[in-house]
């Protein structure tokens, strides 16, 4: 199933002058993460297929108006810090699995933008927006300018963790991570599922991670799953990494009632989980969508609901997500858009 994609790619920045902006259509198709007025951790997973038309779920690997600018920002991060993309030696096959999954999915979903022709192991990939025309031999790293994981994830929005499965656990043994909410691949590489989730408050006690791991290990080919996660970010900065905390950390204190509408963002992560066929590993893409507080007010249901979520959020979760410096300012701003009436069920706009 393909999307007739009339995407106008924006030329914008996620650093320095921060010219990132959503078009009204992009706001409406965002994967708003709250399906009711209160938020608590849960194993909120569902099948990732047959997505609703006109939403970020329509295609399993979503492409939007920020594609080219996000890929440019990724290239800038990698120039400075090549360790944002790593793959332990046993993960090369999973890298090829990832390349296949992303190329096939993009070519099927957006045939006017991407095409893939395969004759045995001789593959021909065309990425029109990025002006890439690449013939290569599937499985032969010497025929690509980068390893398979780095090659394809320089052409795909979102971060990608590639997990190995063994001993009844998942291990973060490869990835491309440049648009992360304050975590580091270089720190987490080689960790298992419980180790990389160790800093999350409350969820361990609720047994969430044990149940989540069990669910993930049961995910099989042709049944990908997804969940949504969220945090908030000051300025539309994709690369909020621990390595660059000195650049973005101080900005957390820069929110005022005057600038909150355009400077503070709800940062949504669309996380999906795919069984990789040849390696038996798992691909875990984390795609980031950012909505400014002003964007939220263009959808009355979302402004109301996010106001109520922030109001009732347990303080430990607010602190873990780094919201303490601006949470009240956001609540006060959004209060102007909350009439106290009931919101309709589900996450989608009315």
């Amino acid at each position, binding site marked *: 199933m393909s999307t007739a994609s009339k995407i106008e790619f924006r030329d914008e920045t996620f650093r320095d002058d921060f010219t990132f902006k959503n078009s009204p259509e992009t706001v409406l198709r965002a994967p708003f993460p709250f399906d009711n007025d209160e938020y608590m951790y849960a194993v909120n997973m569902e099948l990732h297929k047959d997505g609703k038309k006109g939403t970020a779920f329509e295609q399993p690997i979503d492409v939007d108006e920020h594609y080219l600018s996000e890929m440019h920002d990724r290239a800038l991060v990698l120039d400075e810090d090549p360790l944002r993309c790593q793959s332990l030696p046993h993960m090369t096959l999973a890298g090829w699995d990832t390349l296949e999954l992303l190329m096939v999915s993009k070519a099927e979903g957006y045939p006017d933008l991407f095409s893939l022709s395969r004759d045995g192991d001789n593959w021909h990939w065309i990425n029109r927006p990025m002006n890439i025309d690449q013939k290569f031999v599937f499985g032969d790293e010497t025929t690509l300018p980068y390893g398979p994981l780095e090659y394809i994830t320089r052409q795909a929005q979102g971060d990608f963790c590639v997990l190995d499965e*063994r001993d009844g656990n998942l291990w973060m043994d490869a990835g491309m991570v440049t648009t992360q909410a304050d975590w580091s691949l270089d720190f987490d590489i080689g960790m298992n599922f419980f180790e990389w989730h160790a800093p999350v408050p409350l969820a361990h006690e609720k047994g969430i991670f044990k149940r989540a791991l069990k669910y993930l290990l*049961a995910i099989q*080919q*042709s049944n990908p799953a997804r969940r949504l996660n969220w945090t908030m970010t000051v300025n539309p900065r994709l690369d909020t990494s621990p390595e660059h905390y000195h650049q973005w950390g101080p900005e957390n204190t820069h929110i005022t009632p005057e600038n909150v509408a355009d400077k503070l963002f709800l940062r949504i992560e669309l996380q999906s989980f795919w069984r990789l*066929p*040849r390696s038996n590993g798992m691909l875990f893409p984390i795609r980031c969508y950012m909505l400014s507080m002003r964007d939220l007010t263009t959808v009355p249901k979302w402004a109301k609901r996010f106001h109520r979520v922030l109001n009732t959020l347990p303080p430990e979760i607010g602190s873990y997500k780094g919201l303490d410096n601006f949470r009240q300012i956001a609540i006060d701003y959004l209060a102007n858009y909350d009439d106290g009436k009931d919101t309709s069920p589900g996450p989608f706009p009315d």
Partner: protein
Amino acid sequence: MSVNPMLDVIVTDVVEVNSLIKRFHFKLPDGSPLPAFSGGAHVVIEMQDGEQIRRTPYSLMSSPLDTSDYQISIRRDDEGRGGSLYMHREVSKGMKMRLSPPTNLFALDNRSGKQLMIAGGIGITPFLAQTAQMIARGGAFELHYGVRSRELGSYIDELGARIGHRLHCYIGDEGQKIDFDGLLSSQPAGTHVYVCGPEPMINHVLERAKANGWPDSHVHYEHFAKAPAGQPFTFELKASGKTIEVGENQSMLEAMEAAGIDAPYLCRGGACGHCESDVIEVDGEVQHEDHWLDDDEKASGKKIMPCVSRFCGKRLVIDR
């Protein structure tokens, strides 16, 4: 939408390998490649056996590098509940069938310095796929293959041609036996061992590996328990509010499926844990036949694996 999507395929060949074993080939109707898989993966075959739908897992033995078809080998089991008999008697070239997408519960550890593979009888099938993948990828491995007789030693010649000196065969009626202690005590550090075959052989390898100091993380086995036949019984489903009758040659899972319940499963052999269900009420004895629940869980009476386990008593209610 079903939790268990299936592939529609055509049987493109049925080959008699020897007096007990037949090999079945499957393709997609339009000839396009089947989904890729990793060595050790199985598919579940759906069989319309009269009124009854059977679903039985079999390891893929064809090369993961060639997905133009899938191949499986099935040993005829004259004592079983009938899945292998159905495949041997009823399935012929040209038939349409349905398969699950591949699932791997017996994957190679890709970090391993050396893979030590031990097969007994028809347990050779996952290793046929894994050795093909190892040859393409490179890396050290050995395959030790025990068979009852030369006649029943399926694929010895093909394997010999493909992997040469890495194949070690042991023909039972010629007095040859695998020296498990010798093998398990002489491997380089970092070796992983994989065993697939009859249950006594698997248990023996697990026991000798432990005795020889192998960590559990380096010992892999695949054992599909067969859903045993037994006395018919009745149980109730809380969520769907149905009462289900289980026949003599039927599992609880099959009986639920026959009643239109879309219950989760992967291995259908009591190994993967996917069908684990909570017992809400029980008055009687749950007959646990799985390898998933530990002894404490079995004793607690709070869990059941409907793909293989049975019940005897007055009342059983589970959470489906």
